[in-house]
């Protein structure tokens, strides 16, 4: 049973394992009827308009209008591609895993309809290699869809073709970055490319490419079926729709919850996820995955929407809340965060490669008690020198949360440093009494 605060649209009937099969998908939620409608009765522009009017914003992190992105693809006879980004690797994010595992056909139908909007003949699902279980489920679902004639050549007798390949990655966070994803899909090391040209103009194999997140594409069938106005009935004006939010860390019931965008963040953390354990309180939380600047309990009552999070100096990102309760040491959390980005930096751009490396080294000094308060200023200045200076935002993804933690919890960092220096302070303060005592 869904919780009273939940609004299950994408996760409707997700508790039923039958939803995973084509028959179940058709029976439970009327699956593939929208693809039939779109392929038989709608033109490319009609689908595009519906998507654009709906105001659906990308669910992968950037929050860019999905319809607008699709409309950037040039028209005309040429090979165009659609890539579904299922390389969900941001610490704290696990919503796409749930969507693929429980409702793979919803994604496939979304891809088929989006391919119509983008006029793409070849589509790929780039799924992270760790998600082998979900990739197996997708493989089975894609085979079913081919069998039933929803993919392949001359789909539903409409003379439209669409090939869909499930491509497994092999473990690299950077492949979630759209241009690195393209390189990985082309069989190379996953290094980001210089933009522009943007993938919409020159992407996979040099052709125009639409890249969307799993959750974004999963929204497509419902929007085309029920119309843009229906979709805008959920959420806020600038953040329409529902969102599957991953909540983890210091809460009693971590997991995925689908809610209307704009509900109070407190309802998510306390109402749905049960809040921190007995006797503890929220100390800080990442509102949108580990790359979002942390927020404090004072910001718990903000509506959970793209615009409110941006206004608070953070971001909704992929919609993944990580809660740190009062037992968590912020300097240690900063170090954990920085280590991840250091490990995942592809090494192409110097500010990111060196910046993540030195941030880790400096934060290690802090937690080992070897730092001085001046080091905190150096850490902050290193973050400033990473942001905006690289091909992709991996470096920024470390710089934003780390600088937020140093700024908002500077007292705690200084306290750790002071405690480590305490024995030396005693020696400096009273050498004679110390000598007398021994």
């Amino acid at each position, binding site marked *: 049973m869904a919780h009273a605060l939940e609004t299950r649209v994408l996760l409707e009937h997700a508790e039923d394992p039958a939803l995973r099969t084509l028959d179940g998908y058709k029976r439970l939620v009327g699956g593939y009827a929208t693809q039939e409608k779109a392929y038989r009765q709608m033109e490319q522009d009609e689908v595009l308009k519906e998507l654009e009017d709906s105001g659906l914003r990308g669910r992968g992190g950037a929050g860019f209008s999905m319809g607008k992105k699709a409309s950037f693809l040039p028209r005309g006879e040429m090979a165009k591609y659609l890539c579904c980004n299922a390389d969900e690797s941001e610490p704290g994010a696990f919503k796409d895993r749930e969507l693929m595992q429980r409702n793979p056909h919803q994604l496939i139908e979304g891809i088929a309809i989006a391919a119509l909007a983008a006029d793409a003949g070849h589509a790929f699902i780039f799924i992270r290699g*760790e998600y082998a279980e979900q990739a197996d489920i997708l493989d089975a679902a894609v085979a079913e869809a081919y069998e039933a004639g929803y993919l392949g050549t001359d789909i539903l007798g409409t003379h439209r073709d669409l090939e869909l390949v499930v491509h497994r990655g092999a473990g690299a966070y950077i492949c979630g970055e759209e241009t690195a994803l393209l390189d990985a899909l082309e069989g190379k090391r996953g290094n980001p490319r210089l933009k522009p040209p943007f993938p919409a103009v020159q992407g996979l194999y040099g052709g125009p490419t639409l890249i969307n997140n799993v959750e974004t594409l999963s929204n497509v069938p419902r929007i085309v079926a029920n119309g843009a106005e229906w979709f805008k009935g959920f959420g806020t004006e600038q953040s329409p729709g529902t969102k599957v939010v991953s909540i983890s860390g210091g809460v009693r019931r971590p997991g995925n919850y689908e809610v209307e965008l704009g509900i109070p963040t407190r309802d998510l953390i306390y109402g749905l996820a049960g809040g921190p354990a007995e006797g503890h309180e929220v100390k800080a939380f990442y509102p949108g995955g580990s790359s979002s600047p942390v927020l404090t309990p004072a910001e718990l009552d903000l509506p959970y929407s793209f615009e409110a999070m941006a206004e608070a100096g953070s971001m909704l990102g992929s919609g993944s809340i990580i809660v740190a309760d009062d037992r968590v040491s912020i300097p240690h959390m900063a170090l954990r965060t920085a280590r991840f980005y250091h490990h995942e930096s592809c090494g192409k751009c110097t500010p990111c490669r060196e910046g993540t490396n030195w941030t880790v080294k400096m934060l290690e000094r802090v937690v080992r008690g070897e730092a001085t308060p001046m080091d905190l200023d150096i850490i902050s200045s290193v973050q400033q020198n990473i942001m905006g200076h690289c091909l992709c935002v991996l470096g920024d993804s470390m710089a934003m949360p780390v600088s937020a933690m140093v700024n908002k919890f500077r007292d705690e960092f200084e306290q750790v440093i002071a405690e480590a220096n305490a024995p030396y302070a005693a020696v400096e303060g009273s050498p004679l009494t110390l000598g007398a005592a021994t």
Partner: protein
Amino acid sequence: MSPVDGPGIFNPNLPVDQAVTEGRVPPRAEQEIPELHEVDCPDELRERIEELMARYPDRRSASIPALWAVQERYGWCTPEGIRQAAAVMRFTPAELESVASFYDLLHTDPVGTHRIEVCTNISCWMRGGDELLDAFVAAGEGADAHITGFECLGACDIAPMVSIDQRYYGPLEPNEAATAIEQLLAGEEVLPEKALAKRPLAADLPEGGS
């Protein structure tokens, strides 16, 4: 006279580096694409890679899937395996090696039969991921398994968690590590109660469950 005072490469105190006078000799001859008959590629692997290449508009796209196939067959991306894949795909082995070395899940060194990856990222760390990793390392000593800490595996809802042979389990207590390894080595179903595949949605969990 100290070496640094001397006249550079003519300094009699220093052995003359051949590279200075004759240019650097490359360590190996430039790599060529191996021919199929040179590499003794098993038919099964060749057919699998050919099938993978056919799925993409450009055969290079099959690099990662082909390396997965090599790893599946040999346990890791062996140099011979990479040469075989390179021969089938018509690339130099170096091109495939460069891909294999980039990705965490493709192993260019021998690893055990089983893979155990324990997440130690933020959410798992908060809930005991480090202790779980220690427990797995201790329990798996001497076992034919590759046990490592890993970056976020995308299952923070079951933190702390582990991926055992590409299947997710959690949330685990450190004392469950030994049981998991015993079951794994005995070929039994691992921690059936803790498999992610069997877990309901968070809101559908029984009250008080975690």
